[in-house]
């Protein structure tokens, strides 16, 4: 139990309370029950009391337990055992001592500065713990200056300074501005302030009264509007005019300093969005009219998906146009390309478009917005559309095709080869999936590959897979694929 009372800090209340409570504990076995019962409830408070006491002196858990637990749940206990001190005074003592920072009493002006900082983490707990206790008492004590619920953290420093001032002035009731989330320990100990209005604060300290939210909302809305406008006006005049008009409007209307980022954003947007292609002229006009009417995020997201989807449709169309026959596979390839496009595009424009368009919506819209589009696509330097990495991979195999053909080839034939490869890859994946499912697996293993090659007629009883590997793959890969025995009775790769 608490044996050592360090007289350094709060000699009067805390030590007094401790002595009282210790004696109370020693008297009755009820303390244990209360401790056990109270531990669950007072676990945060014990932690809180740790932190609180840690600054002043080393405190044992039991001591904090002892001090905390009887005080909290057992009003009756306190009343019964500590007849010499009224429960009211006891509670007051507890509340004042509970948060380290509660040194509002002129007598306990121990550490005003470190106390609030220490008390800030356990604020919530202290407020919660002392809430009920404080309720009956603090109402009368709620001073005419209610806690100032300042929303921003930047006010903490101000609050501290204010608090210090008040402490120096010897005001028992500190009118600290509070965070909306948690009540400060001080205020919780003295005032219950959870719904105090900001007006008194503004009246007293007009410099602190600020209203950021309404301004920010307007800016965001305007910015999004600009983005939407810029994104859907594809090229040339409509875009330029819209872009120029909108920022000027905003500049005229919005006299806030935040209007400038809007202006800077809007010219950046057309660079960002190269894919709005010509077939989206109609969309752009529609969207321009929409924009003037409505400025909603939802609409913007829809239009974004439309723009993306229509561009995907155009790209898919390009692929589909060369081949006439293989329609089903083309149709599968098209929406796949379209669907994967929005993903990549979205990934490349996270800061601008926070809402990822749903893929089915993109595919639907791509099917809707279909008009024939001229091939040239204006791409910004920083923007990499999805086909590029895919095409570079396919190009790898088209080069091999050229090498294997050993004959001059037309350029169009190479495009044909790419299409074939695309189809081949789709079929390959499907087959592998079927084989893996047949084996009850979700991972495609080399055995599935071998089975596929066997069915394709590449691997026969005469020609094994290893033979093919040896023939066609370079040494490094051969070493990885064909198990070889090494010294020490080891085989690599392990079977």
């Amino acid at each position: 139990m608490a044996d050592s009372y360090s007289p350094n800090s709060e000699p009067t209340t805390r030590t007094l309370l401790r002595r009282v409570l210790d004696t109370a504990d020693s008297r009755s076995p009820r303390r244990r029950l209360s401790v056990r019962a109270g531990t669950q409830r007072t676990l945060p408070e014990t932690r809180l009391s740790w932190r609180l006491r840690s600054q002043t002196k080393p405190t044992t858990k039991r001591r904090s337990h002892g001090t905390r637990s009887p005080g909290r749940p057992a009003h009756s206990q306190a009343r019964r055992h500590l007849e010499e001190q009224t429960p009211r005074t006891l509670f007051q003592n507890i509340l004042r001592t509970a948060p380290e920072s509660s040194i509002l009493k002129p007598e306990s002006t121990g550490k005003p500065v470190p106390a609030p900082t220490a008390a800030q983490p356990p604020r919530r707990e202290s407020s919660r713990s002392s809430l009920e206790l404080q309720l009956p008492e603090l109402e009368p004590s709620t001073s005419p200056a209610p806690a100032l619920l300042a929303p921003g953290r930047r006010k903490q420093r101000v609050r501290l300074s204010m608090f210090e001032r008040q402490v120096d002035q010897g005001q028992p009731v500190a009118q600290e501005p509070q965070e909306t989330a948690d009540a400060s320990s001080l205020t919780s100990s003295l005032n219950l302030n959870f719904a105090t209005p900001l007006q008194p604060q503004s009246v007293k300290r007009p410099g602190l009264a600020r209203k950021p939210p309404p301004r920010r909302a307007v800016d965001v809305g305007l910015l999004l509007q600009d983005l939407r406008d810029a994104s859907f006006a594809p090229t040339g005049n409509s875009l330029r005019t819209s872009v120029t008009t909108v920022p000027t409007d905003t500049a005229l209307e919005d006299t806030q300093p935040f209007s400038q980022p809007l202006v800077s954003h809007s010219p950046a947007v057309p660079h960002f969005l190269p894919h709005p292609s010509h077939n989206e002229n109609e969309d752009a006009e529609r969207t321009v009219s929409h924009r003037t009417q409505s400025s909603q995020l939802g609409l913007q997201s829809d239009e974004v998906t439309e723009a993306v989807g229509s561009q995907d449709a155009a790209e898919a169309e390009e692929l589909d146009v060369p081949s006439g026959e293989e329609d089903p596979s083309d149709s599968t390839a098209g929406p796949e390309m379209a669907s994967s496009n929005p993903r990549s595009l979205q990934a490349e424009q996270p800061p601008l478009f926070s809402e990822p368009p749903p893929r089915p919506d993109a595919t639907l819209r791509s099917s809707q917005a279909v008009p024939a589009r001229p091939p040239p696509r204006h791409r910004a330097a920083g923007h990499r559309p999805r086909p590029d990495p895919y095409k570079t991979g396919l190009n790898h195999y088209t080069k091999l095709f050229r090498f294997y053909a050993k004959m001059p080839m037309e350029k169009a034939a190479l495009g044909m080869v790419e299409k074939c490869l695309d189809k081949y890859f789709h079929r390959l994946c499907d087959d592998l999936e079927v084989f893996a499912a047949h084996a009850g697996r979700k991972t495609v293993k080399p055995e599935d590959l071998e089975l596929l090659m066997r069915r394709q007629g590449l691997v026969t009883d005469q020609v094994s897979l290893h033979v093919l590997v040896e023939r066609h793959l370079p040494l490094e890969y051969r070493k990885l694929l064909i198990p070889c025995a090494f010294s020490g009775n080891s085989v690599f790769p392990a079977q």
Partner: protein
Amino acid sequence: MALSNTVSQKAKLKRKAPRSFLKRVFKRQKPHLRLEARGDLLVHLNCLLFVHRLAEESRTNACENKCGVINKDHVLAAAKVILKKSRG
């Protein structure tokens, strides 16, 4: 061994397999499936063999039409045949 030998051994691998490309393609197609580490090498082997057969077939087609240049049609016809063959 001499240092130059070890350096040359680490030289560029000709006929590199685009392993990440293959893995990405598979993932795009079948996101719910997994491809093993060595599986993509075999997929690369399969692609090589497919391209090889396709090239041979298209060369045959071009030669049959007595063209010195491989045309789109040759490739198309070849693709039909080879894709059918590698149905699996």
